[in-house]
């Protein structure tokens, strides 16, 4: 499966990474190299092989659905660039 510059522009949008036009050809070339490399898996015969999601084939453990965290909002928000009265600030979404 070959990767076009249009594909790469779409992928970058899905990943929410700004990709300037000037960088597009170089990024697309390296991504195409990687995708070409992983494409060799298509030749492997995996008929009837169950996909492996966990290296030990174990199921995710569940815990009781109860609150385990104390309120640390002020502490956690110390790492945010812009907060006000406990809320995270972002550019205006609704005009």
């Amino acid at each position, binding site marked *: 499966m070959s990767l076009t510059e249009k594909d*790469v522009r779409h992928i970058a949008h899905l990943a929410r990474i700004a990709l300037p036009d000037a960088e597009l050809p170089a*990024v697309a070339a390296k*991504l195409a190299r990687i995708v070409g490399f*992983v494409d060799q898996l*298509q030749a*492997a015969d995996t008929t009837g092989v169950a996909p492996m999601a966990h*290296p030990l084939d*174990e199921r995710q453990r569940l815990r009781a659905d109860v609150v385990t965290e104390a309120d640390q909002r002020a502490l956690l928000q110390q790492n945010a660039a812009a907060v006000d009265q406990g809320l995270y600030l972002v550019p205006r979404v609704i005009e």
Partner: protein
Amino acid sequence: MASPTIAGLARQLEAREVSSHELTQRALDRIAASQPVLNAFITVTPEQALAAADAADARRARGETGPLLGIPLAHKDIFCTAGVPTTCASKMLAGFVSPYDATVVERLNAAGVVTVGKANMDEFAMGSSNETSFFGPVKNPWGLARSPGGSSGGSAAAVAAGLVPAATGTDTGGSIRQPAALTGITGLKPTYGRVSRYGMIAFASSLDQAGVLTRTAEDAALLLGAMAGFDPRDSTCADRPVPDYAAGLGAPLRGRRIGVPKEFFDDGLEPGSAAAVRAALAEYERLGATLHEVSLPNLGLSVPTYYIVAPAEASSNLSRFDGVRFGYRHPGAGSLEELYKLSRAGGFGAEVQRRILTGTYVLSAGYYDAYYLKAQQCRRLIADDFRRAFGSVDVIAGPTAPAPAFRLGEKVDDPVQMYLNDIYTIAVNLAGLPGLSIPCGFSGGLPVGLQLIGPHFEEGRLLNFAHQYQQATGWHLREPAA
């Protein structure tokens, strides 16, 4: 003078020949002197370290003992440390201070370990050379023009140069074993789930595992014993007892069976490395073990499988970096979408962006079955190969890396060339197995690593094999010229 081991320092501390304060000051002085040359650290914490050392000395004065009480150590900068910056070697997290400690940090603190700083690494652990760090590459103490390997390159260089006796690391595709091999030290990646991932910044959640870089297998046993064990805060952490790893080191190897995969000795292995690994296998025969050829026929699928699974998981894990709640925020964004896009483009380096884009692609509509599902099926083929092999042998042995330390800059232009550096280590992560690298000789004046792989939760067996080798040989005692 040979750089001391944890076990050696613990005896000196026990005998009051030295204090933790003195050991810690010595480590801090060495780090400060080395930093312009090796760049092994991102953050050094002299005040906190000396306070922790004094606390350890006070505990010993009250009669407490313990092999780790007062021992200086570096944490890879992927482990969250409360009150001390945790950057993951990324501009994205420059200035980030975690509100809590990783479980690994918490447990080692409780054992009395003294953290002297946070070791340099590849950005978000994505790299095999330490060149993707936002804070600059680490140099290999065996040759300053060469890479120490990665992603735990700062941890490896710090131990190899004798700055600290041990460091923590993480290994998603070889990031402990490969740098240990390239710098001539011991590196252990435990079984997936043996050590808690809580507070360890996530790269690929079905592969990531924490481990140690040390001078000896004995030291690795002491550290792993303190780090491992069940943690309710990591839902994939194994709920099984932690054996006394140090107690099993002395078992003789007579009659033990070593599997040697023929696929590990293909044309891609540098001849000097092959010779050193063959000589190590011969040494194991002298120790009473027997060698048996085994086959891992799907080994060739492991690197392409990994470069679907790991980027897919990374693209999901790294979606949390949005410029809003923590991390780098672009100052000029006019809309929320632009804030996400510009912050992620500005905060992540080129290799991290490449992996996010690769992962986004393989998970995108229409491609999931062809890539992610296919890779998960290949992952099972690879894991089944190991299961079959362990039906007839106790451990599997071979090279850790295809060649000794390469030159900085040598592989940066072609990502696939860099990825292939992990050809012998990646399959172990895909299968969730424990793997260990120990120094076993030199090629062209640079260290070569022997890799030992065991069945799930047989870290003790690997440490026993490694310790017996280190009792009979002196490669682990060799050090780079100061």
